[in-house]
């Protein structure tokens, strides 16, 4: 059968691993000692909420999850707002050289995420980075900023770098959405004397809404799964300020083996999978409304 390889690939490398995640979350196990495995029931899920190590107020998992949600919300927010703004700009007939801009916009899309992060780390360097020279020249700051060494600025910086990585995709999607809006709608509005703002609110936004919705949901999932960028820039530091859920899962599974382990990391992964699944359900529903599947 033609479809068989696909079914096999999905079963062996997606459904079976997913089942393994669920199964391991009920066991105590570690990579250090592969033969040792004990059934512990819901112990790992209790651990998610009980285990307080770095902060007396929140458990390790709850802290990572809420950090993740905040980080994803911020990053996707930037991507959507800037994405729409740049797409509008590049769609405007008043802008000369649109073709060149459209090609330039795509370039960051093709750069490996880990490489983008290394480039950004250097661009944000406090002595020789262009970001600091621009900020100093414009007198926005009076002494160089160290972006990745304090908790708050590292959080914001990784968020902006992630937005940078995801922005080209958003711009291109919004741009193609804008191009599908018929011109005569705008012409009719111009005849009626509508202002640019009225046209944007009454024509562009309502007609772009399906594209905005599906693209944002897609970006929400991708951003929630983002690992490389934070790992290269900060490794979740300083003092865990950028330790989102994916980073925490990696740490608990592979690095913090003294209190971590496969079971606990699997329980955390369940939360990751659950959130992605919930967003996917919304995504598939909105897709269905737009196009027939």
């Amino acid at each position, binding site marked *: 059968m033609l479809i068989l390889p696909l079914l096999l690939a999905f079963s062996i490398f997606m459904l*079976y691993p997913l089942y393994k995640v669920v199964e391991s979350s009920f066991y105590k196990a570690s990579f250090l000692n592969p033969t040792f495995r004990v059934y512990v029931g819901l112990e790992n899920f209790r651990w998610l909420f009980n285990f307080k190590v770095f902060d007396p107020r929140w458990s390790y998992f709850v802290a990572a999850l809420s950090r993740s949600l905040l980080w994803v919300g911020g990053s996707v927010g930037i991507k959507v707002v800037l994405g729409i703004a740049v797409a509008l700009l590049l769609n405007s007939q*008043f802008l000369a050289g649109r073709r060149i801009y459209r090609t330039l916009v795509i370039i960051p899309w093709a750069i490996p995420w880990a490489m983008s992060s290394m480039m950004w780390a250097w661009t944000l360097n406090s002595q020789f980075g262009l970001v600091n020279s621009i900020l100093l020249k414009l007198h926005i700051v009076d002494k160089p900023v160290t972006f990745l060494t304090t908790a708050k600025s590292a959080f914001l910086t990784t968020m902006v770098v992630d937005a940078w990585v995801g922005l080209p995709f958003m711009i291109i999607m919004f741009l193609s959405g804008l191009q599908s809006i018929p011109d005569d709608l705008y012409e009719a509005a111009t005849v009626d004397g509508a202002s640019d703002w009225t046209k944007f609110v009454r024509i562009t936004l309502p007609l772009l809404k399906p594209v905005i919705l599906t693209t944002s949901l897609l970006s929400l999932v991708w951003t929630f799964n983002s690992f490389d960028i934070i790992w290269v820039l900060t490794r979740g530091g300083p003092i865990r300020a950028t330790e989102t859920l994916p980073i925490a899962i990696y740490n608990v599974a592979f690095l913090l083996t003294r209190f971590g382990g496969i079971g606990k990391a*699997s329980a955390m*992964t369940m939360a990751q999978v659950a959130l992605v699944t919930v967003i996917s359900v919304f995504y598939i529903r909105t897709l269905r409304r737009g196009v*027939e599947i």
Partner: protein
Amino acid sequence: MKMSTKRRLKGIIYQILAVAAMIFLLLPIYQMLITALRPSDLPWISPMPLIPEKVSFRNFVQAFQLVPRLPRYLLNSFLYGLGVSVISLGIAIPAGYALARFEFRLRRPLMVFIIYANMFAPIMLLIPIYVIMKRFGLINTYLSVILSGSIFTIPLSTWLVTSYMQTVPKDIEEASFIDGCSVYSAIYRIILPMISPAVIAVFIYAFITGWSQQFILALVLIKTDQLMPITQGLYQFFSRSSVRWNEMMAAILMSTAIPVVLFLSVQRYIVKGLTTGSLKG
């Protein structure tokens, strides 16, 4: 007259905004360029000059001394990309044909699952992938990264191939069936040549993803220097306490140029597939 000055003003404002957006989007790329082209024996000046005082290509040669295994990493990334794209297309082409042509009970749930599977990222399956690869003794092999990497490119590849196959009229291959052609030879002799640009685009999409985005998989599956992809290989030098930035940026520039050029050459098809992929049925 008044109208045209307003138009011109708008044009100027939009141009300024567009340039500002480009500065944000291209800033790290520009910093990479000027760092890679500035000779490493020039003294560091803070802030760094926007245009290098002297331009030389020596850093590109010296990058191979700083990172002795650079050619090996590039070869590895090439092999990872090739493996991932061969597997992805090997699965996506027959599956895409079936999904585009036949009506069967699993079809709809499968299409929905493909969309869901496209949402998956390595972090969600990292632990079981590691356990499975360890059990089969595949840790530290090309195969481990290629197999686990493919699963994240198969969904979109299948989706894109399906939507392109739907654009080919049915009667074309039906005529070939009358001539005694099998389904397989109809796919390879008739349909694939008709949508070859799209198939090449999907191949390149999977290749770039395999080349570029195996960082986290390689981090847990690859332990020896000889098998590392370029991202992981360069990351080793990046995470050291003192980074030789000129040579480092030259190395990054050389290794990102390949996926960027490939991507720009086919982005038209990928964007078209992503935005018009309305699958009827």
